[in-house]
């Protein structure tokens, strides 16, 4: 028996990445090892007052701190039956778009493109193709600018609070953002051009169940309380309050992340799932771009998640511009947050973080303190699906040498844009 072990995705204390056992032509066990901090966070918030919860849980992840903050607030507001103003809804959606632009730009340009072009890292790529890396850095900066302007600081936003927003942006700030986004339109188009030139990554095909937020406007990462699962032509809807019927989690011995399956099949969440569940977003320029990318929906290739992120990059920039126009037309104004009346209740929120569905569910006591909390991250939701696609990758590979298989497995893992490493980020000596 041979074994492929990739600890390249490892994070801390030796927790590994991918392990595949092969016996002749038969693939044995396939493990994706995850040290997923979010699953262990309940003790950190138990007993905390409702206004302390989001600031703590936003620190689960530096890349997704907006998603964790806003999902946390949404769960708390659902528990206390708080309905925020339309302006707050728009500002929160704009924050989500900023995070998505930043995250997708980082993932596509600094992590994925080097894979496709056979560079070991973005640093190596920047030596030969600095324009490509600079394009990615500009888009990432645009996403950061949106988050800093609307969220109040570069990371872990302080403006979103229970019931509303602490400080609304000034008109001048929105106008400045609009100018930056107009440059972003050209940059996201250039990103699409680049994506169409990448070599195909055609080494893993299988039927996949996709799950994503079914947004009422067909284009929201924040609003909405229903998840749609799409599989082989059939569609099922799950309400946020029934999220456990979607996740059906179970523990596995090799991973800190529980695995999930819907109707006994692994689910894939993220950009590709969002476009599959909400295909009517893909009109006009996006429809043309989809055609240029040769993207078929539903897709049977997890690598297409990279194409979906490129499409979302264009859409996020355009949607952010639309929101700013809406805010300027309506006249942005300072609003006091809606008063919150704590009560003993449970609130659940589902949103779309850059890499997929994010679930926060809290039970509060009558004083508004956390009695129980559950946080399920996209990477945990994807874990079983990743293992399924790792298995298919090895089974369908004509090349059987470790180097080829290892490269393909890492590319599939990276296509999921997994968040297994964000909570810890130390320097290491050689």
């Amino acid at each position, binding site marked *: 028996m041979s074994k492929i072990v990739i600890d*390249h*995705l*490892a*994070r*801390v*204390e030796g927790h590994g990445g991918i392990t595949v056992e092969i016996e002749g032509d038969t693939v044995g066990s396939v493990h994706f090892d995850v040290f997923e*901090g979010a699953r*262990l*966070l309940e003790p*950190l918030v138990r007993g905390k007052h409702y206004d302390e919860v989001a600031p*703590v849980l936003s*620190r*689960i992840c*530096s*890349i997704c*701190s907006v998603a964790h903050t806003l999902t946390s607030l949404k769960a708390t507001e659902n528990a206390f039956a708080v309905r925020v103003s339309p302006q707050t809804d728009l500002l929160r959606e704009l924050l989500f778009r900023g995070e998505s632009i*930043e*995250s997708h730009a*980082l*993932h596509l340009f*600094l*992590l994925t493109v080097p894979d496709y072009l056979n560079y*070991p*890292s*973005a*640093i*190596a790529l*920047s*030596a030969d193709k*600095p324009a490509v*890396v*600079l394009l990615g*850095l500009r888009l*990432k*900066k645009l996403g*950061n*600018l949106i988050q*800093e302007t609307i969220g109040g600081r*570069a*990371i*872990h936003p302080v403006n979103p609070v229970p019931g509303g927003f602490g400080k609304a942006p000034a008109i001048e700030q929105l106008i400045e953002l609009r100018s930056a986004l107009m440059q972003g339109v050209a940059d996201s188009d250039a990103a699409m051009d680049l994506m169409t030139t990448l070599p195909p990554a055609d080494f893993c095909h299988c039927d996949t169940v996709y799950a994503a937020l079914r947004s009422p406007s067909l284009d929201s990462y924040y609003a909405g309380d229903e998840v749609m699962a799409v599989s082989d032509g059939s569609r099922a809807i799950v309400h946020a309050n029934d999220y456990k019927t979607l996740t059906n989690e179970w523990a596995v011995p090799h991973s800190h992340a529980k695995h999930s399956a819907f109707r006994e099949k692994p689910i894939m969440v993220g950009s590709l799932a969002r476009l599959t569940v909400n295909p009517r977003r893909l009109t006009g320029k996006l429809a043309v771009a989809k055609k240029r990318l040769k993207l078929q929906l539903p897709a049977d290739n997890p690598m297409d998640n990279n194409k979906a992120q490129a499409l979302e990059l264009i859409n996020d920039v355009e949607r952010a511009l639309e929101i700013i126009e809406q805010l300027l037309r309506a006249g942005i104004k300072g609003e006091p947050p809606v008063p919150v009346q704590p009560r003993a209740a449970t609130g659940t929120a589902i949103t779309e973080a850059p*890499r997929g569905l994010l679930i926060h569910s809290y039970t509060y006591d009558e004083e508004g303190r956390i009695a129980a909390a559950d946080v399920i991250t996209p990477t945990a939701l994807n874990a079983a699906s990743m293992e399924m696609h790792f298995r298919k990758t090895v089974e369908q590979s004509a090349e059987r040498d470790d180097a080829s298989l290892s490269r393909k497995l890492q590319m599939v*893992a*990276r296509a999921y*844009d*997994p*968040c*297994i*490493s*964000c*909570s*810890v*980020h*130390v*320097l*290491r*000596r*050689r």
Partner: protein
Amino acid sequence: MKPPLVIGLGNPLMGDEGIGWHVAERLAGDPRLPAGAEVVCGGTDLLRHADQMEQRRRVIVVDALRDDGEPGTVSSWEYPGGTGATACQPSYSQLSGLDNRQDNAHCLSAIQAIQLLRLTVPVPITLLGISIPCASLQTGLSPELAARMPAILDRVLTELE
């Protein structure tokens, strides 16, 4: 030219790994902080602070360091300002002795970020690595590292003199 900036990296939910964040938080309220110097509690993604680093006279990045050093030992690396594609070649390294591998699934290490930032933010950077004994889920520092905090703050302030 803007005044010096100190960025403390780390996740305060992950125990000693959050040392940079804790240092920045303490430093921001320290009366010895030179007038004009600015301090930011960062997360784990240095690239996110590119805007704040622009046009700085100097940037000091404080991050946790996994090595065999005594907890709280401060090691430093100087990265000169300036731009140029050659600065980004893999063979180039002012940050000798530090692991430059991509060991992170969806963001870049501080080392990689510093090398990339040369393309856009050509400011001198001092990287201070603080040796930590462990990184695990907890909200505070380990007692042995907490005990070294005064000495660590002294060291960072010395850099700002």
